[in-house]
């Protein structure tokens, strides 16, 4: 074997590499835990774990430079290290079976986490008592929705992700008879009525509610109980010229309507919606407390789940530690609002959910086997000496 290849192999199968990677992982995890106070749980996942490198900025500039290996980097190398070491050293031996099983489980677990980090989608569903909902909303991603509401039977929806919008420039969609041009955009902003803010800069908006509202940019927030509310000024331009400039933001609760080309349109920047092939009606939300205290004993939502194909129509009780699983989604009781009148269900889609179970079983078996072998050996040796 060529010495370079051998060196390469020795590097990847070495136990030293394992130890170094594990040590770096623990530093990464510790650092990320501390950072969570400032960045919040989502910020930390993006900055530390779902990335190849943790980026830092050179002081005084905006230049990002890698300062530490990130989750994908360490996890990936660990995976290579594990696989390489096992392929290289693999021997079918009873004595090694436990260790091998444990590591196989670990490989699966790492792969499962990768799948989850790439495919998991979380959103939430806000339902008022008596109300029905057929979509859930993201709480971190927004979209620009332009609806053609001319037909009373259905709406034609064009949804443009916030990220695409924020890139700037003009957006042309085949279903829209006009172009969308971004005039300005703030990732997080507060909206105020102009009357309360007489010195505000003149508005870019010319139509809709925009001219009456002043936009103040805010710092991005990472707190878990706060969300960023972007704001944008958009100009719609048809073949005959400009239709006007609108102010859009998820804070503006009602969509703004206008007529163009003989059709009625609605425009809104809103939390990204996930439409489901079923709808959920909140029959009752209950918030039980222990007698004589405010300590919550249980939160529960009694809902009616009705599928669009008419085949499913049932009542479900969702409560703490007892979510509803339906159509590859998990609905759990996350929060409530307005004096127990509104229930908020967290909706999680995680196609890789089964992987951890399998890997856990394999790892558990492996460890049990390994330590039993050790223990039996130890007892035998002691019995032999005494």
């Amino acid at each position, binding site marked *: 074997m060529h010495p370079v290849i051998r060196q390469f192999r020795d590097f990847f199968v070495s136990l030293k590499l394992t130890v170094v990677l594990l*040590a770096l992982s623990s530093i990464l*995890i510790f650092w*990320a835990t501390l950072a969570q106070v400032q960045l919040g749980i989502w910020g930390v996942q993006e900055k530390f774990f779902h990335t190849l490198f943790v980026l830092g900025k050179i002081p005084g500039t905006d230049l990002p430079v890698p300062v530490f290996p990130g989750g994908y980097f360490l996890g990936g190398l660990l995976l290579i290290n594990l696989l390489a070491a096992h392929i290289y050293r693999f021997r079918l031996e009873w004595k090694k079976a436990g260790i091998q099983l444990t590591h196989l489980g670990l490989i699966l677990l790492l792969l499962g986490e990768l799948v989850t980090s790439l495919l998991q989608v979380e959103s939430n569903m806000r339902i008022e008592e008596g109300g029905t909902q057929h979509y859930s909303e993201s709480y971190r991603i927004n979209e620009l929705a332009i609806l053609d509401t001319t037909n009373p039977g259905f709406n034609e929806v064009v949804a443009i992700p916030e990220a695409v919008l924020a890139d700037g420039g003009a957006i042309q969609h085949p279903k829209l008879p006009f172009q969308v041009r971004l005039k300005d955009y703030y990732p997080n902003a507060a909206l105020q009525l102009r009357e309360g803010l007489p010195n505000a800069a003149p508005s870019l908006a010319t139509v809709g509610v925009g001219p009456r509202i002043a936009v103040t940019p805010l710092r991005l927030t990472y707190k878990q109980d706060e969300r960023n509310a972007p704001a944008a000024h958009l100009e719609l331009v048809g073949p005959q010229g400009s239709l006007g400039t609108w102010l859009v933001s998820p804070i503006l609760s009602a969509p703004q309507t206008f007529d163009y080309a003989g059709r009625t349109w609605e425009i809104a920047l809103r939390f990204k919606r996930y439409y489901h092939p079923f709808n959920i009606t909140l029959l009752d939300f209950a918030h039980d407390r222990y*007698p004589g205290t405010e300590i919550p004993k249980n939160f529960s939502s009694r809902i009616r789940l009705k599928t669009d194909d008419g085949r499913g129509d049932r009542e479900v009780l969702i409560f*703490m530690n007892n*979510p509803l699983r339906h159509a590859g989604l998990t609905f759990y009781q996350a929060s409530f609002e307005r004096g127990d009148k509104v229930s908020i269900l967290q909706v999680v889609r995680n196609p890789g959910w089964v992987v951890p179970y399998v890997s856990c079983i394999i790892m558990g078996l492996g460890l049990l086997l390994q330590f039993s072998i050790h223990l039996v050996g130890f007892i035998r040796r002691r019995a032999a000496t005494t």
Partner: protein
Amino acid sequence: MKRWLPILVLLLAAGWLASSLRPQKNPGAQDLAAFGRLPVLVNGRLKPLDTVARTSLLVMQGRQRVSDPANPGPLVATPAEWLADVLFNPAKADTYPTFRIDSPDLLTLMGITEGDTRISYDSAAKRMMALVGFLPSSRSRFTFKQLEPKLAELDRQAQLAEPTEVQLRTPFQKAVIQLRDRVLLYQRLKHSAQTPDSADFLSELVQFQKALPAGVAAVRARQKGEPHDTDAFKAMMTMAGRYDFMDKMGYLLTVPPASDEPNPTAWKSVGHALLEAFEGGSINPNVMAYAALGRAYRDQQPTQFNEIVRLYRDQLAKRFTPQLRKSDIEARFNAAEPFYKSTQLYAIAFLLAIFSWLKWPAVLGRGAFYLTLLAFIATTAGIATRMWLEGRPPVTNLYSSALFVGWGSVGLCLILEKIYRNAIGSVAAGVIGFVTLLIAHHLSLSGDTLEMMRAVLDTNLWLATHVVVITIGYSATYLAGFLALIYIVRGLFTRSLDPATADALTRMVYGIVCFATLFSLVGTVLGGIWADQSWGRFWGWDPKENGALLIVIWNAIILHCRWGGLVKQRGLMCLAVFGNVITSWSWFGTNMLGIGLHSYGFMDAAFWWLLAFVATQVAVIALALLPLEKWRSFRV
């Protein structure tokens, strides 16, 4: 003679433990023990008055004894007697020094001068003792009467401090809010059985009962706009205001639900029951019973007092027999103090085991083993009683996790000691048992440790699996760390670490690290499964989850270093000691961040202890890295 010493130690200690199970004696003729066993509903749980008395005293002043440092002997014989004074004879209770104040700024605010805090002893010997610190030289606990003139100012200061976020409050603001809460708790206790300003609550109730028909008629007439007796109407409105305030203030729910009430937990405050009298026209007999109990207590009429307690109990027994039984056992458990007694046993076992390394290894070592075993049995019984009272698996909050971490470690130590018989297990058990119980004691100062479980934790399945397994993982990681500490300290500072002992310690540490890896991995994974079952995701990078993962990774690092030959004995020991740091971070540090799903119980005073502990561990590791020639044991 020497041969019998361990047995003698065992018998003495066992007898001492058994003596704590005797029924409580009453200091006087009044059966205050029976009074202390009466159940009331507080914080969602039915518990004996005895527990209320003890936890209230712990919250208010950090200890259960009520005494004045200048006078020998306690002011009340038992916590239950103190509570009886608070409930029925508040004027007297107001003169007990039960409010602890440490902050000098707060003392100034409350108008307490140096003259009030200084203790002057009459005998020269005592003055000498105070000078060298064996007797306290200043007071830190004050009476309600002393605080009373400045309560309005205290309230104002607390309102000023409150808008500041908990983490950002200054020490003064924290002290103000803490004292305000303590005073409030005391005031609420005083409004629980009667109104504290009433000289004789029973007579007041009798008067109220008499005036009730005319008063109710007057109120009804007025509502219809008919002519009515204005005096009777006014009297009724005054009483209604009085009892409404009592209902809002009352801390204990002493009045059991009526026999036709289907919900057995619908206990009421005295104020609430009295407000109901306006509807029903007669006063709830349970309210009368407490009022009569109060008068008998104040007037020192033991026969009457004991009879009312007995009758009240009999009447409760019609519906609440199982609850009464729990209440009785809880009061007995409180008095037996198994954890406090175990703390002492662990300390003695530790000393015996240490001495066994110097002299009489077999005799002292066995004595230490017996004491550890007894302490282990006592803590086991204590934990089992708590589980039975709560109907829950052993670990439900930070306090019970401290108990259980100690219990798990000591259990492992006993096994090690049984195998190796070199007193190392007993030394480790003594230290870990003592320290964890001390931590538990400090955690108990924040209130009743048998809390109701918040909604998300209300699941016995996961508490029994994930939480128990992960806590055993903590136990084992700590144990490995403490065994490593013993190795380093003995090797570095004494000549007693011979190669055989060193090898034995290495095998112990290695074995315990294997055990710790197994339990922390399985526990972490079970936590992930709980998260998936409840929230549809296996892993969420929550601080506590990360902490558990760090323990798994650290143990894996130790094992891989060992297997790869990257470390020998000394390196293994250093890594194991650092395991103490990692486990402490995971156990307490993550809770101090104040974020995440697991942030139950934010403690800032503990933060400095955590830092100090980390510093000592790092110092030991640094010492261990000194070249072997500097070690006393391995010199040739």
